[in-house]
């Protein structure tokens, strides 16, 4: 079976505080995603991620980040159009993770046509910690935004790269 056109990857470790948000969002999105949109949970191990997006036209990555912004901040990046800023590297304990996987795919000419990254700034990444309130709220915004995006998309997805806490401008082009 050929891969679906759109792949959503919820990245993280559900047992490490706010790092769970990507995985939790993937579970919510799986219940609501229309046919043709595949939703997967992923540990964030880089080489595995690169395998996941082979053959897909568009990939939406949902992950917690640690870049120094206030907790709950939503970072929207159109990685198909711009490089992921270096502050997003090393957000996980993996030596080779999401940002490196995207940039390595780009260097090898193996990046899907559209790669959108939603990074939610985390507060607490300790083992066994629950989700912080800020990240839970940020996650709710991202959930609705991604749903709006995939429901409205007509073969092409895009987000305007920006950083903030409020509702973003999901758009199609």
């Amino acid at each position, binding site marked *: 079976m050929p891969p679906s056109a759109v792949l959503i990857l919820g990245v993280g470790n559900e047992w490490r505080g706010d790092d769970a948000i990507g995985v939790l969002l993937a579970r919510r999105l799986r219940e609501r995603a229309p046919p043709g949109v595949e939703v997967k949970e992923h*540990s964030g*191990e*880089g*080489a*595995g991620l*690169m*395998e996941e997006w082979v053959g897909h036209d568009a990939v939406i990555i949902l992950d917690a980040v640690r870049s120094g912004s206030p907790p709950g901040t939503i970072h929207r990046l159109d990685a198909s159009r711009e490089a992921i800023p270096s502050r997003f*590297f*090393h957000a996980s*304990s*993996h*030596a*080779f993770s999401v940002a*490196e996987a995207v*940039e*390595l795919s*780009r*260097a*090898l*000419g193996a990046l899907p046509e559209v790669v959108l990254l939603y990074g939610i700034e985390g507060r607490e990444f300790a*083992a066994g910690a629950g989700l912080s309130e800020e990240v839970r709220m940020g996650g709710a915004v991202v959930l609705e935004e991604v749903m709006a995006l995939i429901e409205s998309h007509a073969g092409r997805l895009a987000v305007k790269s920006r950083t903030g806490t409020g509702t973003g401008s999901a758009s199609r082009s």
Partner: protein
Amino acid sequence: MRTRTVRVDYLARVEGEGAFHIKVKDNRVVDSKFRIFEPPRFFEAFLRGRRFEEAPDITARICGICPIAYQSSSVQAMEEICGVKVAGPLRDLRRLIYCGEWIESHVLHVYMLHLPDFLGYEDAIRLAKDHPDAVKRGLRLKKLGNDLVRVLGGREIHPINMRVGGFYRTPSRKEFETFLPELEWAREAALETIRLVSHLEFPKFERDYEFVSLRHGDEYPMNEGRLVSNKGLDIPLSEYFDHFEERHVSHSNALQSVLKARGAYHVGPLARYNLNFDRLFPSVQQAARDAGLAETCRNPFQSIIVRSVETLQAVEEAVRIIEGYQPPETPAVRVQPREGVGHGCTEAPRGICFHRYRIDSKGIIRDARIIPPTSQNQVTIEEDLLDLVSTKLALPQEKLTWLCEQAIRNYDPCISCATHFLKLTVEQVT
């Protein structure tokens, strides 16, 4: 007084967070500290009170890169206590999943983490732009390792299928057959990897290490053996604590392990290779010789060649096991708990991973000790840097820092097993 400081916010391309501080006074290195500041994780404490069957699943969580090492050492210890011997195809499958872990871990380190150092790239992304075929080869090899772990472990990160007594489920022959063509490709790819890294330029640097590894009667060490060294150590696992001790130092949250009699020691690929060259497959020995590697290698920078040689060994071993595989009648032998103490030691990609447990007659863990490989290499890493900086003080700051980072990566430190991000500081006081 003039102070010169070299600082790297964090050392990329290692697993975890830590720091390094070198103090230079009157052109002499007076102090070198490898600091690990990730908070302690208390795995040994929260294993107490849990059932003995839970040890492989709990300890697999210590590391996302080498969970098989933790699972393998813990089941070995529990099986010793319960008087169970896992043999035949089940033992082969345990070795096969370990091959998968070696391949994925070694290849990640060789191509993504260490190779950029030698070729002058800041990271694998920049390396990939100029050498796409090499990076693609690395990624495909790594995927093969991941796939072996997934088919036997249930998933590739924190696998869940290994249990005390065997596995929860064993694959059919058919599930393995698809691996053979890819393993044939991998054999060539591993040879190509050895050729590639053997032509790198290596700093001239050797030390008189005490190498410590497992040694088995007829296998290259992986999941069973006695503990041996090149300086006379030859002991069963049960005597580990008679010869080794862990020290707490104020600058590190990870305990440092030393030999009581002689201090620092060196574990990992170089140790295994030097102590077990005769246990490599003849074809792998030949590949090592062809790469210009002698039977003993004391230059830690050449560990990248040895990792590549061990990758070939793991590929050959995987082929051997899969070709001869007959599914076992049951996925696990029956295990009844009994009171006692047991030891497990297996070769994680980065060195020996030692476990000791005491359980009661009901199978409850009363005491647990786990010595990860990186804590065993900590003192050796500090001594390497001390020696290296002492001889390279004339180098400009930037080159010295680069060389130090490269030297730390010689050990493929899995600081996550013990720590996170590494900060490097060279302070020069004159």
